[in-house]
């Protein structure tokens, strides 16, 4: 039987506010335990929550960026459950009237093997504001658990997609696009190690052609794109095997163990919480007026989708390249500055995604930390364009730039990397090579194309890489006529 995978994602993004959602405590990461937990955060009796305008504004920014409906009146509810890192005994969240409903995100799923990369639109169900819980530390405190409430009350935007993804690759593409967007519009720092962007995946399988969904299991708290992919792949295999062996999948929450690469059951539906949601009487409905929404809209930067279209139009890059280049605002800004500096969009895209990205990856650096500036890369590409440098020489200049050896022209002069432009000098080398390789010449004349390439190689070698390959080709052809 052929199976189809169905995936929906719930992403918790930590909002980049200075203070918490319902108190004036700092949200800075890494403070000593409980030093950023106020009377409201630790739920002392008689305290009242006061909503942070900055958190609401983040949600508005997100809603506008995905073309969603912003609920002009939205409501906070209490989600009740007992856990030591939740001192109130309930989490303030939004159920019936979330701040954001609907909207969509364009994703590009990379090609697998020989196929083309594919563009898809994933619809969003909703995004709602809520508070984070504290942290439980299960290391040994004489058999007890340590509770740090610094994180309690940190504002989160929970973003829920429709179950529209059909493979782990699509789920990862969606998560990446969402990550790029929330960091792009400045509502989340995107730091996955620190838990600023946490993904829950709802996964089910069904026979191809069946319209009803299969029973889903929810994989909790995935904090890297690689784990997201691995966890879904494992879970899909497990569900298909279970069903093909005649078993049944029961609704459950599971955890992914990165060490074993497996998912395991956390709780089944029978033990699932009954959260007894109800509107929080401590908080009034939130009203978004049109002036406020318009003011927030005016502060939004050009969005990734608009920038992708512009990059394709203005710089002639492919849809896939445009997506890669808008992976982050820093990368997009870098590319655009380099492209403008040299006037060669396609070549700039190749260098940014090729040589530069490879060097950054190898050195484990972010684009913002690149030792080669966008102006320098632009200048380098301009020297390729005007014929001063071949691709090979340009890579040597790039190495110089990376090492901080100075500006492009200075490196070319200091290291003698100028492409040979004197045709007399080149002609002499060609003559020498032809005289030294009579066998190749004879073979070429007898019809062996390969022999020609060998001669080109010899000339390039003799010029120490400085000959212009196109010029060498022309000259050799002329001499061998």
């Amino acid at each position, binding site marked *: 039987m052929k199976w189809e995978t169905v995936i929906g994602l719930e992403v918790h993004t930590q909002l980049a506010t200075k203070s918490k959602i319902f108190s004036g405590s*700092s949200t800075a990461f890494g403070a*000593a*335990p409980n030093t950023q*937990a106020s009377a409201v955060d*630790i739920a002392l009796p008689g305290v009242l929550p006061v*909503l942070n305008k900055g*958190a*609401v504004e983040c949600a508005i920014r997100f809603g506008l960026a995905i073309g969603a409906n912003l609920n002009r009146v939205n409501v906070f509810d209490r989600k009740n459950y007992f856990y*030591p890192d939740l001192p109130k005994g309930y989490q303030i969240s939004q159920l019936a009237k979330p701040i954001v409903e609907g909207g969509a995100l364009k994703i590009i799923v990379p090609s697998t093997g020989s196929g083309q990369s594919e563009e898809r639109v994933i619809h969003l169900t909703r995004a709602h504001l809520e508070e984070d819980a504290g942290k439980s530390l299960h290391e040994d*405190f004489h058999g007890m658990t340590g509770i740090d409430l610094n994180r309690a009350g940190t504002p989160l935007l929970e973003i829920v997609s429709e179950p529209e993804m059909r493979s782990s690759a699509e789920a990862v593409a969606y998560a990446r696009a969402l990550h790029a967007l929330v960091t792009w519009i400045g509502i989340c720092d995107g730091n996955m190690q620190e838990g600023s962007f946490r993904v829950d995946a709802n996964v089910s399988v069904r026979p191809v052609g069946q319209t009803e969904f299969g029973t889903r299991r929810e994989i909790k708290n995935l904090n890297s794109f690689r784990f997201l992919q691995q966890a879904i792949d494992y879970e899909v295999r497990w569900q298909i095997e279970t069903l093909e062996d005649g078993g049944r999948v029961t609704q459950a929450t599971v955890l992914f163990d990165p060490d074993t690469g497996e998912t395991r059951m956390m709780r089944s539906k029978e033990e699932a919480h009954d959260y007894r949601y109800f509107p929080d009487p401590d908080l009034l409905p939130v009203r978004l007026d049109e002036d406020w929404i318009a003011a927030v809209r005016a502060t939004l930067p050009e969005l990734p989708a608009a920038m992708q279209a512009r990059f394709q139009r203005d710089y002639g890059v492919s849809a896939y390249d445009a997506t890669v280049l808008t992976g982050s605002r820093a990368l997009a800004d870098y590319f655009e500055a380099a492209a403008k500096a040299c006037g060669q969009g396609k070549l700039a895209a190749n260098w940014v995604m090729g040589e530069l990205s490879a060097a950054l990856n190898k050195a484990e650096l972010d684009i913002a930390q690149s030792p080669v500036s966008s102006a320098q890369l632009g200048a380098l590409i301009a020297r390729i364009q005007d014929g001063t440098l071949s691709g090979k020489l340009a890579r040597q200049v790039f190495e110089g730039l990376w090492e901080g050896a100075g500006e492009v022209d200075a490196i070319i002069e200091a290291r003698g990397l100028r492409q040979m432009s004197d045709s007399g000098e080149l002609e002499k080398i060609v003559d020498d090579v032809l005289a030294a390789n009579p066998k190749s010449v004879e073979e070429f004349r007898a019809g062996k194309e390969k022999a020609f390439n060998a001669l080109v190689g010899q000339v390039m070698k003799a010029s120490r890489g400085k000959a212009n390959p196109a010029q060498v080709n022309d000259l050799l052809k002329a001499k061998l006529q």
Partner: protein
Amino acid sequence: MSLTPDDVKRIARLARIETSDAEAQATQVQLNSIFGLIAAMQAVDTRDIAPMAHAQEVTQRLRDDVVTETDRHAAFQTIAPAVENGLYLVPKVIE
């Protein structure tokens, strides 16, 4: 609508209240009498009335995003039963 003893036990468990069978039975009677009141309210036709999230027709005031709180954990932790390295200690919980 009325509650069974099992419903009462389940609600008690969700609220982490230990209940004996006798208490559950007594509570069942009391809770069921409240349902009479709820039934009377549910008899009112509310089809064209939007539910209210709050009893007052006012909207939430918002706070500027500014840090105003200082570190008072030492004072807060004087009433905690057990504390170590700034952490509140609680009986071991593993989900």
